[in-house]
């Protein structure tokens, strides 16, 4: 059986990318045990597109329905899946939740209401009563996302951050009843494994180690670029120059077409999506940095390479931008050299590759 201590050890010891696949059944068991104590969970949607919920409903490690059925987590409120509605649904909010999940950003009062009450008030009230943890799910709830991007007419913000700056709807000093800041699970949408593993560990009372932006380190300690299946193409300087050559069969890196993998923290490349089937870069789509705390503004324009996006370089020059660009500059030089060589060979009657 998986005890809390063992669970924590596992979470720390095993690479995040492998964790769920290896310990899927143990997690389910752990959740089942925890469920007996009756965990009250409330899920609120602010300025959201429900994409994170849809993402979560398709989770497989564990299957959300198995989790709900077996763990007996008491989901008191979730607008997309609950049977109740209207006043009966609103009455369900009159509790002290153990876990509060927020999906979507939080605007000024008039721009988002439910049951004729501002979402911002509902979130603040529930957060103040939350015993264990407030979990912000997705790009919008974590750091503001698209509603809080340049042109933000609704004064929208994340739950405890606005882009990289702490504050947000609950304020920089907010702590849950258990003394925790908001746990941030970014991404557009959030990854279902991140959500389920974080929730299940929180339910067990095991709080994952968080980084300086409130993210669990186990999912957000390496760049998407680091484990990218196209990393080898990057290393040898083979860059796609248009979408004519982005299919994997062309064996080119997507850097020049705007890939944000080198500046974005997440284990997407290893974990992949929809049951580990695919991930953006594998199908020729450059990463848009949807896990980045400054998505989308610092990532725009999305289809230009990193060095042409000054705001991006300004954000994290030490760890991300410069290093990546320096490495890439080297990669590009290799690329140019190879092309030169290939050209030369062609001129000499050889076949251009």
């Amino acid at each position, binding site marked *: 059986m998986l005890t809390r201590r063992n669970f924590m050890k596992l979470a720390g010891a095993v690479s995040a990318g492998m964790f769920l696949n290896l310990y899927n059944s143990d997690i389910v068991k752990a959740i089942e045990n925890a469920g007996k104590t009756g965990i009250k969970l409330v899920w609120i949607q602010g300025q*959201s*597109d*429900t*994409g994170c919920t*849809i*993402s979560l*409903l*398709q989770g497989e490690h564990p*299957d959300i*329905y198995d989790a*709900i*059925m077996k763990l007996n987590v008491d989901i008191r409120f979730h*607008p*997309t*899946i*609950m*049977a*109740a*509605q*209207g*006043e*009966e649904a*609103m009455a369900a909010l009159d509790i002290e939740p153990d876990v509060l999940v927020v999906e979507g950003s939080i*605007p000024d009062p*008039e*721009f*988002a*209401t*439910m*049951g*004729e009450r501002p979402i911002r008030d509902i979130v603040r009230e529930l957060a103040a009563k939350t015993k264990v943890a407030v979990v912000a799910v997705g790009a919008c709830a974590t750091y503001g*996302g*698209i509603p809080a991007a*340049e042109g933000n*007419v*609704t004064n929208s913000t994340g739950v405890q951050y606005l882009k990289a700056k702490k504050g947000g709807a609950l304020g920089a000093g907010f702590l849950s009843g258990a003394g925790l800041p908001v746990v941030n699970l970014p991404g557009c*949408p959030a990854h279902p494994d991140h959500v389920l593993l974080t929730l299940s560990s929180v339910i067990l009372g095991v709080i994952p180690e968080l980084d300086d932006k409130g993210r669990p380190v186990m999912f957000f300690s390496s760049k998407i670029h680091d484990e990218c299946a196209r990393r080898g193409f990057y290393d040898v300087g083979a860059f796609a120059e*248009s*979408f*004519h050559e*982005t*299919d*994997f*069969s062309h064996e080119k890196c997507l850097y020049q077409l705007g890939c944000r993998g080198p500046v974005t923290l997440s284990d997407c490349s290893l974990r992949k*999506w*929809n*049951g580990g*089937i*695919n*991930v*953006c870069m594998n199908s*020729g*789509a450059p990463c*848009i940095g*949807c896990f980045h705390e400054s998505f*989308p503004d610092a990532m*725009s*324009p*999305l*289809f230009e390479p990193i060095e042409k996006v000054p705001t991006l370089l300004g954000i994290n020059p030490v760890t991300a931008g410069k290093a990546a660009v320096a490495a890439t500059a080297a990669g590009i030089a290799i690329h140019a050299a190879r092309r030169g060589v290939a050209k030369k060979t062609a001129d000499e009657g050889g076949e251009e590759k």
Partner: protein
Amino acid sequence: MATEINIDPVTRLEGHLGVSVSVEDGIVVDAKCSGTMFRGFETILIGRDPRDAPVLSQRICGVCHQSHRITGVRALENLAGTRVPDGARVMRNLIEAVTTVYSHALWFYALGGPDYSDAVTKNGLTRLDPITGQGYREAVANQRKLHEVMSILGAKVPHQMTYIHGGMTHQPSVEKIMQVKTRMLEVSDWVGSTANLPAVLEDKLAGKPNDYSKGHALNDVVDWAVYALSEGADKWGGGHGKYISYGVYDMADGSLFEPSGVWDGSKVIPMDEKKITEHVKYSWYTDDSGGTPASAPTPKTKHDKAGAYSWSKTPRYGTMAVEGGPLARLVIAGIDPFDLRKNLGGGSGKASTFNRTLARMQETLLLRDKIVEWLDELVPGQKTYTDFEVPEKGIGVGLWEAPRGPVGHWTEIEGKKIKRYQIIAGTTWNATPRDDMGTRGVIEEALIGVPVPDVKNPVNVVRTVRSYDPCLACTVHVMTPAGQKYSIQVT
């Protein structure tokens, strides 16, 4: 005196919705719908690289993300005069069709279907019970396979990433085609062959026990249909009875598999995009925020506007209130498989809560069969991209169909930047407030005449609202006029 029933939030849909209806003598006599969340996408897009718009506007909705992405891409390609290679055309159709089948199945088993389940009505249809029902469980497993298909073709779901200005970011391969085919065949087995439908219906009407070897989903649909008819769902929920479709699925000859058009109540007339206008008299925007999308200004908010009750604008075709969605598409296409709407629902073109739901199921079967056919059109390794350059200036129009209604994007570019962006989403056609002339919105009108024998349990009201599969990536609630309020118990 009328009794007011206020339902806010209406759950089990994308976003939040509240509905307020006035009931007199057990019949709905008035209704109001209002969107109360606003994000300002059209403002946020201004000044950005036009190629970013499909990616960002895709995130309007976590259910019909692919519809917004493709519509945004089509607006750009329309302006640039781009014609995508055949491989991209087929891949795009496949993604759209799989997503629509997925979305319709999600509706049947998770969103709207439970209103007809044993959990809600004690009618014995336990397979449709949310979460615990066997049908629900099977559907989740099969929806996951459809999500995998969407992921193979679209890189990840939600928010597929492979649509790009000029085509697709990847190309078909033998492996991908086989991966998709395998999953589609598994899902198909569970659904059952379309050809089995009349037999399943006949058996059911003859009182025979369900034969699940003919298809699990087919049996569930027939169970639903027979029960819904016994509830009289073919008699109410009609509304304005006029339809619009922008058309969807590009065929090789330039036609659309489900064509564009407007049903004016008696016949199909051609759809002219220039006749689309948006009214704002009852919306929280300044009075000059409406107009035709190709020229209307970016909306300016005005939350203290007298008489206004919604963040949603009200699109009209000319002056006509028209509904969008699967029923609209099939009526305009002249398709009624097995004459089901005609024989069971009182007319192929008749609007009702029953026919709207039945058409969604008919379209699901139609597209499921097409997906298998279209897969065979893919040629491994074929070209899927053509050169694209952002035009210097001009207005591009993208028109397409989301599972739940027509989606339009209008992008105005100047100096290779977005100057103005207008979006009319699928549900916007249906879940609107009154228009400038005071005519009710589509859902508002459909609620008139819906029977509510027990004001404490207005299940027919929520069945009618959900028959539109409203997808409000916005909090929508409905105003409550003075009068007695009841909360509802639908569990």
